[in-house]
C-alpha cells in the first residue's frame, strides 16, 4: 500500500530536496484516489454568495466530479446539497443559476423547496409504496458548508476542521482581494470556460509561477514593447514588464496547502482601483491599500486561485479525467464600480487572461505538452526547486507588515521566482492521500 504514496513526493528538508514524480499527473489510479481523498476530504470553493442575490435563488456547481446545488431559501438562508433527485438521481437544477419557488425534478416530478426538503413525491398516495420507502426523501445535504466574506465552500466529508481553521493565515491575503470594494465584490457578468487535455495540477502549479512569464509569454512581452511606442491595444493599459522584473518579490507558505506570491508594484496608477484608492485607504488603512495595489497571487488548495497581476481574476479548475481539466475564469470586481473603471478592468482582463487573450493560451497549450512529456515518464521533475535556497521558516518583514503568520517565506529579487509555493500544496496533497490510506487500513 505504501508504494501507492511514498515515492511520488520526495520531501527531505534537511537535504534541501523537494520534488514530485511525473506519475502524479498521469496515473489513473492516483487520479481516482485524488477524487476520494483530496476532493472528497477537504473544503472546496463553490461560488460567491453574490451569485445568489436574493431568496429562492440557486447555483449549480461542483466539487470534483460531484454536482452540488447551492440555494437560498425563502428567508435568504444558504443551503448546499447534492444536485441529484433522491428518486432516480437526475440532476435537479439543469442550468447554472436560477430563481424558483420550488425545484421540480424533470424526470418523475418530485418537488423540493429551496431548503432541500422534498415537499411532494408525485402521486404518492396511489404509488402503493411498502414500508421500506420510508419518509426521508429530502435532498442529501453536503456534510459541511460555510462561507468566508462572500466566498462559499463545501466539503464532501464531515471530518474536516472548521473552514476558518483551514483558511488560517491566508485570510488576510484573501481579504486583499475581497475588500477592494466598499460594498463587497462580484463577478462581472459573463465567464470563461475552457478545457485542456492535461492534469488539473498543471493549473494548480501555474497559478503561483512567476518563472514562466519571461519565456512562455515572450510574445506577449514583445507586444507590450510595441505598445510602449504607441501601437496596438492602448485601451488595455497593460503593465510595463521591464519595470516589473526589477521589483522585490516574495512568497508566503501557509498550512493546509495554501500559498501566496507577491511583487512590489511599479505602476500602481494602471490598476483600475487606483482612482478609488483614497476611499480604500480610509476604509482599510494605508498598509493594506498598498498591498491591494501590489501584484499578488493566491493558491488555495486544492483548486481556487485569485490572481491580481495583469487584472483581478478568480479561477477554479475541475479535474474531469487524469488528463482532462475544466477551467473557469471569472472577472472579480467591486460591487457598484464606476462604468469607466469597469470597462478599464475588462479590457485589461481580456487582454491577458482568456484563451482568446494574448497570454493564457500559451500556458494552456504548454500544459498539454507537459502531459505528453509526462507520458514518456521522465520520473522525478525539477520544477519545485527554484528559491529553495532562500526559504526561511516563519515570517519576514513583508509578513510582519501585512500581519500574517506564514509557515515559511521567501523574499528577494523578482528573478528568484519562488517555485517553493508548491511545497505546501504537495505536502497537503500527500497528507490527504495518505491520511485516507490509514483510515482505510483501520477499517480493514
Amino acid at each position, binding site marked *: 500500500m505504501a508504494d501507492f504514496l511514498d515515492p511520488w513526493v520526495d520531501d527531505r528538508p534537511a537535504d534541501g530536496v523537494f520534488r514530485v514524480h511525473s506519475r502524479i499527473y498521469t496515473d489513473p489510479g492516483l487520479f481516482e484516489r485524488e477524487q476520494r481523498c483530496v476532493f472528497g476530504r477537504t473544503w472546496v470553493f463553490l461560488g460567491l454568495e453574490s451569485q445568489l442575490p436574493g431568496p429562492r435563488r440557486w447555483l449549480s456547481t461542483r466539487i470534483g466530479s460531484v454536482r452540488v446545488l447551492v440555494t437560498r431559501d425563502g428567508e435568504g438562508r444558504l443551503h448546499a446539497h447534492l444536485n441529484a433527485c433522491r428518486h432516480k438521481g437526475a440532476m435537479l437544477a439543469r*442550468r*447554472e*443559476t436560477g430563481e424558483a419557488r420550488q425545484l421540480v425534478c424533470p424526470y418523475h416530478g418530485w418537488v423540493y423547496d429551496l431548503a432541500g426538503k422534498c415537499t411532494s413525491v408525485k402521486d404518492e398516495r396511489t404509488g402503493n409504496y411498502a414500508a421500506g420507502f420510508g419518509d426521508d426523501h429530502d435532498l442529501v445535504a453536503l456534510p459541511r458548508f460555510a462561507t468566508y466574506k462572500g466566498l462559499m465552500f463545501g466539503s464532501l466529508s464531515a471530518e474536516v476542521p472548521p473552514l476558518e481553521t483551514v483558511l488560517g493565515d491566508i485570510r488576510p491575503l484573501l481579504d486583499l482581494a475581497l475588500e477592494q470594494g466598499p460594498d463587497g465584490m462580484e463577478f*462581472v*457578468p*459573463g*465567464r*470563461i*470556460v*475552457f*478545457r*485542456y*487535455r492535461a492534469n488539473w495540477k498543471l493549473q494548480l502549479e501555474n497559478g503561483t509561477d512567476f518563472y514562466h512569464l519571461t519565456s*512562455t*509569454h*515572450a*510574445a*506577449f512581452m*514583445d*507586444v507590450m514593447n*510595441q*505598445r510602449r511606442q504607441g*501601437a*496596438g*491595444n*492602448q*485601451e*488595455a493599459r497593460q503593465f510595463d514588464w521591464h519595470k516589473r522584473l526589477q521589483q522585490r518579490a516574495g512568497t508566503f507558505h501557509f498550512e493546509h496547502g495554501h500559498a501566496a506570491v507577491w511583487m512590489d508594484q511599479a505602476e500602481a496608477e494602471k490598476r483600475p482601483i487606483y482612482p478609488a484608492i483614497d476611499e480604500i485607504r480610509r476604509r482599510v488603512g494605508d498598509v493594506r491599500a498598498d498591498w491591494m495595489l501590489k501584484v499578488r497571487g493566491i493558491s488555495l488548495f486544492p483548486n481556487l486561485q485569485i490572481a491580481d497581476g495583469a487584472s483581478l481574476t478568480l479561477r477554479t479548475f475541475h479535474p474531469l479525467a487524469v488528463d482532462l481539466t*475544466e477551467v473557469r475564469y471569472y*472577472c472579480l470586481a467591486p460591487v457598484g464600480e464606476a*462604468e469607466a473603471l*469597469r*470597462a478599464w478592468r*475588462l*479590457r485589461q*482582463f*481580456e*487582454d491577458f487572461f*482568456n*484563451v*482568446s487573450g*494574448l497570454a493564457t*493560451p*500559451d500556458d*494552456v*497549450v*504548454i*500544459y*498539454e*505538452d507537459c502531459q505528453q512529456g509526462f507520458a514518456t515518464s521522465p520520473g522525478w521533475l525539477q520544477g519545485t526547486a527554484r528559491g529553495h535556497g532562500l526559504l526561511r521558516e516563519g515570517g519576514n518583514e513583508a509578513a510582519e507588515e501585512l500581519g500574517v503568520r506564514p509557515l515559511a517565506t521567501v523574499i528577494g529579487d523578482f528573478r528568484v521566482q519562488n517555485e517553493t509555493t508548491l511545497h505546501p500544496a504537495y505536502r497537503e496533497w500527500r497528507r490527504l492521500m495518505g491520511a485516507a490510506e490509514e483510515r482505510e487500513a483501520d477499517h480493514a
Partner: protein
Amino acid sequence: MRELPDFGAASRREALAIATELIAYEAALLDERRWDEWLALLLPDCEYWVPTWIAEDELASDPRRHLSHIYYATRAPLEDRIARIRSGRAAAVVPLRRSAHVMSNTLIESCGPDRIDTRSAMLCHNYDPHGETVDVLFGWTRHTLRLGEPGWRIARKKTVLLNDTMPSSVDIYSL
C-alpha cells in the same frame, strides 16, 4: 410577427451580392493567413467583438459592463494579434492551427447607399497539427460594411460563439 423583409428591392439585391462576396473574401484571407490584406479590409475604427454568454440563453450585451472573449473598439489591437502570430514566440501559435471557414446564409439586416448591416452563419473547423486535434467553432457573425474612398470595408464585426466551452486556444483566424 415582424414584417418580412422586402426581398425584391434592387438596392437590396446589390447589397446582398456585395456583402456575400466581401464576407467570403474576409474568411479566405483568414484561412490563407493573408494578414495584411485582412487588416486592410477592416477600417481603422472597426469595432471587433466576441461576447461571452452570461447564462445558457443570455448573451453579454454591453462590452463596458459584461465580460467579452475579445472586445476592441478599434483595429489597432488586432495588429497586436497579427504581430504575435508572426512572432513565432508563442506556443499557442507555433505551429499555427489551420482553419477553414464556411460563412453562409448571409442576410441583409439593413442597407443604405454607403452602409450594409448583415448577419451570417459562421462555422470554422480548426486543425492543430501539433496536438493532432480538431475543434469547431460555430455561431453567427454580424458585419457592418461601409463604403468609403477605397470601396467597401468592414466597420464592425461581432461574432457570437454558440459553443462557448472553449478549446485551449482561440484566435482571430478562427472567428
